[in-house]
């Protein structure tokens, strides 16, 4: 067991990024080739874990699965129906 601070105080910054909350995920959103990189999902993601990036020579939405909790809000907002849902394995 790690040494715990008195009264559950967090005395160093960065705990939000060091806790990989993606492990909570039940559903697994997946961006397909239909993505037009409009960035709407980026705006709606409550975790702020989608970015539009250059990937394999093409701009598209990229999900950071370290923090994505699988809420699937991105799927509901995507105008191109470019995000699919599956079960987390």
């Amino acid at each position, binding site marked *: 067991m790690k040494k*715990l601070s008195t*009264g*559950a*105080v967090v005395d160093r910054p960065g*705990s939000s990024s060091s806790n990989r909350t993606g492990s909570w995920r039940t559903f697994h959103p997946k961006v397909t080739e239909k993505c037009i990189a409009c960035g709407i999902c980026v705006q709606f993601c409550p975790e702020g874990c989608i970015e539009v990036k250059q990937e394999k020579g093409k701009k598209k939405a990229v999900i950071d699965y370290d923090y994505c909790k699988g809420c699937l809000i991105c799927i509901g907002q995507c105008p191109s129906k470019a995000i699919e849902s599956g079960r987390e394995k």
Partner: protein
Amino acid sequence: MAKNVVEASEGVAEAVKLCEPDVLAVYPITPQTHVSETLARMLADGRMDAEMIRVESEHSAMSACIGAQATGARAYTATSSQGLALMHEMLFIAAGMRLPITMTVVNRSLSAPLSIWNDQQDSFSQRDTGWIQLHVEDGQEAHDTQVMAFRIAQEAQLPVMMCMDGFVLSHVYEPIIFLQKEKVRKFLPKPRQDYVLNPSKPVTMGTLGTPEYYMGFRKQVQDALLRSSDIIKKVNSEFSSKFGRKYGDGLIETVSMEGKRHALITIGSVAGTARPLLEEMGVGLIKIKSYRPFPAEELRKICEGLESIGVIEKDISMGWNGALFDDVRSALYDLKKRPTMSGFIAGIGGKDITLDDMKSIMQKIREKKSGVEWLY
């Protein structure tokens, strides 16, 4: 040393003033009223320097104390009955965050039916919150214990409630020796907390505890409570060497137990009703002063070899027994030779406990009665 004939509530307010709290957050409720009224008068008269926050409920009073204490200020509040019940969820938070808040609880029964009179159901119902809970017998003990409570809280980094019976103690006039300001200042050094809110050294307080960590933090509170037994004992003995008065070992006190085979166990002011009967009835008195941490080890040492004991208490854990009765019984379970044990639920909602009641209780203890009965 000069004695002041004052109401016990005023004696407590005087003790609070001596401890120089920075923040008082209070909401009025009977029978605690005279404590906070006296403090408000002291502030208005310029005899005391503190911030008094007039909150809209006891839930807010405790919340304000949590916020104040988190900055490293010395925070205090006083309440009773429904007020303490309304604080319930914040009490867990104060203890879990290890904030050394000090509170006076003037014990009163809980509704329904509505009653303003004394019993100890209110503080006993807060047993599992992680607060240190000290109970007193008379005005002098209340005055002294209030000062010790501030010191114990800051050393244990745990909140402390100092409990005194409503009306039968809080509103009684008696001669009280007030502690001296300079001596109290030495006895009660500036508070030290592991963490305080400070913009130049930011921390996050009141965070989420995921299953990975939560249990560890709860265990930390339990360990701190268990360790606080030694702190209470140390503070009690230091208090006695500085001020000349002593309350048992700080956790538990015995009265004329020498050579006795039977004992009455109780908590709070009802001990005063038992005192004059002890010799006549051949029964010793065991006063539990610290209800949490519970002095199980000390109790075992005192009760080993006794023939019979009885517990009289002003609370009931509905659906089972008096809470103190069960705690005592559980503490004594490991003894090889256990005394027979009886329980008496009495004085609920201000019902008088007379000398005759007390006599008959002692008689039943001597007759090695077992089981729990209500005196009503």
